[in-house]
């Protein structure tokens, strides 16, 4: 179904790309090169594109193993805390180790779309 009118999570705005984009938009507004309405549109577009790109265009994969320490499911959000995690990339590079990893996952379809 056409996605016009459907909403996308804005959680990727808090990632490094989103934060940097917001800083850049702030700079453009300060320099009076764009107005805030355009900035909102850019961020909305960013939400959409990130979600779609992660779904459709990212083909890189990794597998990881670790000990599941805590998990919860609250307000349609799963949270996993995993300890002693080893990530293996599919391009055969060295594995990466992390003492603790937190995974927060939201449904690809928001509740209002189900």
């Amino acid at each position, binding site marked *: 179904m056409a996605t016009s009118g459907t909403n996308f999570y804005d959680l990727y705005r808090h990632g490094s790309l989103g934060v940097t984009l917001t800083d850049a938009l702030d700079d453009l507004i300060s320099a009076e090169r764009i107005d*805030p309405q355009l900035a909102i549109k850019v961020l909305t577009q960013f939400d959409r594109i990130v979600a779609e790109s992660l779904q459709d265009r990212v*083909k890189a994969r990794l597998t990881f193993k670790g000990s599941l320490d805590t998990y919860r499911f609250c307000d349609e959000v799963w949270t996993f805390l995993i300890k002693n995690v080893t990530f293996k990339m599919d391009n055969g590079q060295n594995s990466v180790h992390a003492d603790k990893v937190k995974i927060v996952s939201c449904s690809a379809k928001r509740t*209002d779309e189900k």
Partner: protein
Amino acid sequence: MEQLPLPTSLAEVEELIRALYAPNTPETISKVQEVLHRLQRSPQGWQLAQSLISNPDNSIKFYAALTLIVKLNRESANLSEDDAKELLQNIVGWTLQSLSDGSGAFVTKKLCSALVTHFIYFSQLWPRCLRQFLFCLDVERSVPIEALDEALETNIIVSTLSREKLTVAIWFASSLVEEIGKTDMNSLKYAQVHDRLLRNGSDIACLLARGFAQSTESTTVDVEAEALSCFQSWILYAQRVSSNFDLLVNPLRELVEPAMRCFGNETHFQPTAELFSDVLSNYSSFFTAAHYDALASLFDSPWAAKHYDELLIGDHNTDGISFGLLMLAYGDAKVQDLMTSTDARSQRFLERLSGLLAANGYVAADDLVFVPALEFWSTFVETMIDSAYTDEEESQSWRPNADQHLKTVVMNCWRKIQWPPVEHFAEWDSTERAGFSDARKDVADMLQSIFTLNGVSLISFFVDLFLQSLAARSWAEVEASAFCLSALSDCTTDDPQSDFELSKVFSSPFFDLLGQAGGLIPLRLRQTGLSLIERYCEYFERHAEYLPHALNLLFAAVGDSILGGPSARSISTLCSSCRSILTGEAGAFIRHYQTIRSGQVLDSIAEERIIHAIASIIQAIVDEGQRLQMFEELYAIIKGDFERSLLLKAQPNLLDMSDPNFLRGVESSNTQGAPSAEDISLQISLRALRCLSSMAKGMQDVKDHVVELEADPRPVSRQGRLTNIQSDIIRLMVEVQRTFNTSGELVEIICNIFRAGFSETEPGPFVFPAEVVTDFFIQQPLETPRSGTLLSTACSFVGSLYRGPRTFVPIHLARLLPWVITMLQALPEPESDTEIAQNGISFVDRVMSRYPDVLFQLQPSQLLEFFFMFTLKVLNGKEPLPKSAAADFWTGFISLRNEDIVLQTTIANAMNHLGPLIAQTLVRNMGGNAARSELDKLSDPLKKLVTQHVKAQSWLEQALFHESFPSTQVTPLEKMAFLKKVVGLRGARQTNQLVREFWLSCRGSNFTYAS
């Protein structure tokens, strides 16, 4: 741009409109557009639209309709109720007129859009807009709104409409829902419009029911197609509605059966299938149980069987895969029911879904339904896994059926992932190749999920397929089996049963065949075979009897231009994992390496991996003497390269391009003629350094050892074999760096070599004594390239010092500190090299956090004064990374406390002097100078300041009212309120939010667009 004058007559306006739509230069079109915009915006715009609409030229009529929309959007607030009613009657009239006077469809559609725009602004005048429009269409004139009460029932009205009128009504209905759907449902401004739209639910149901009921008589107007598209728009809208839901959804649900009948019409099959697929995928709750039952019956009909057969044997690129996607969408929506059902109809449907994985042709290139079908089956497997862990075992009577389907799925996938013949593959474009590889990865993912359900039996299944295919010499099947086994490597544990199964593979004749140079085995299978060995390195740890054979195979492939890279990677993984088993083979491996490199120039990365592999075996040798001897043997080879490189640099005439030792310095990517002797000598050194770095990584211990922090450092022997080796390595690195003193890459590799030793707790050739490392750093001149990397390595060095015994740490820090600050002093501006600024500040921060006495006793003391001012400048600046380091530094500095009274007095004095400056810098940032992303970081020193220092409030107050405060948007009262709240919060987490709000107030409302 020069403006055109406003036209003085209607004829001129018409001329301009024609010019706008005629082929013209962009400049002309811009000028025409600009003058027409001015006309539209003028008070005469309404009149202009009215005059133009009667023109026989379609483009002029279209422009008239567009003008109406523009005027409504801009000036609807100026229209009285009577004006609005009159306007509505006029637009309806013009729309009816366009239907009868042969106007183009695009004109009528634009007039429908104008009507919709009217509804958005004046919905209270004609809440049943659709019924009103249908009534007007029926009576063929624009009737007043009040006359609607006398109209017949909507279903009677639509029953008499001609196909043409029906089409226009559907255009209006589509535009209505799409345009209103674009407005914000939650905004007060549009809430009433949405509410009134819902009240048109029963009318749209009457209209579309008639639309779906049209006969398929040959005509230029395809009412059914329009109705399908309109239906889709209304369902999409209904999905978003939260209140008065039934008003719309119930009437729309009545249309499902009529819409389903459109499947029967070949022309409408595709749009109907897309409509149902979309709704099943995105709004499955729209359909009722009866609808699902009807769809299930449809899939069980001969009609569906015909479409299914066509899908399996047809050309997907030409015929499409709509039917397959429809089945999959239905399967997805009902996956739980289908999985737990045991009735014959569900089983037949699932059988067909598994059959979608066996359509004709190769995945991605010909078969386009495989990947979506695989996605469905992955969901099916995940649903099974959920049930397996949540449902009682007795309630899983469906499980045998589901397992049977999974077997078919696995078998079909195994067939599908087999590579095509080489000549066939060569014809594919890059997208098809990538698509095929991605599909294989998707299959691997699904197999891992299935393993959760089936366990070792899945391994046995592929082992059997592997052995059967091997016996039949069916290489594509052997490759697919090996690939599937590789995919399961992460799932297997040290379970004896899976080892038993795997042993059948690793003891099979396959690996003998693999080792035969120029043998039968195709390249692709050789790659997968070597990868299989790498993936099961843990198996080889448990079954050392197969290890030598596996490694021999891998070494034999190292020289191959295609297999060399993967083989070296496998060697590195295997040797690292199985290092303790292989210690007796270290000498043989070194000789093997020597033999290979004397015969050919290995790929640089492959060579580094082999070195890493051998070094990791050497590291595991328990006897120190033997370990160092093996190390020296390997090191001697690399050292030879260094010496050759230095000699060549000194005597370029020694260059002999027939000597493989010199060819090592020629990059394979170099296509720009013959490189000079100097370039070659540098490349040989870089390559040797990278090998040395791999050696250092290989020598890292994989076991954890206890560190005694209070113990004295190990006595450093100035003689001894290990010390000699270390001295030699350092001497070589210094020599190479001195010779090639402009190479930044070289500095980076040397830093990597040092870093490899920093993480070690046991002595080793790369675990250099602290004084050696300190000497190396402080002897680096300021102009050394990549100084930032040197400083970041120095930070790691400090970290490693802190992990070891504490004695002598202050001595090393006291020697390094002046070097670091002098490096910062050499910068023309604090932000001219961000890497140096960031790492320099981080270094001082690390020293201050553990040994503040070292920092405050720094000599000459001007260095410290310089550093404080430098860090404040950075905090005032714009570069995010140094700024973040500076914020960390000041957070640590503000909260610095020490038990030593003299030192504490020094700290307090420094703080008294610096406190106002820190407050001023922070306030300037929070007053709007900082970037939004920096606010949290900058809140940290602020929080510390208000909790640790009594004078904080007055410092902050002075800063807020200082002339350097950047914003004029906040009043003194607001500044004081901010200060009061900051102090009141006493460093609590809410300070961050407060700072953010203050920053927004200082920047102004333009910046509230992002939360």
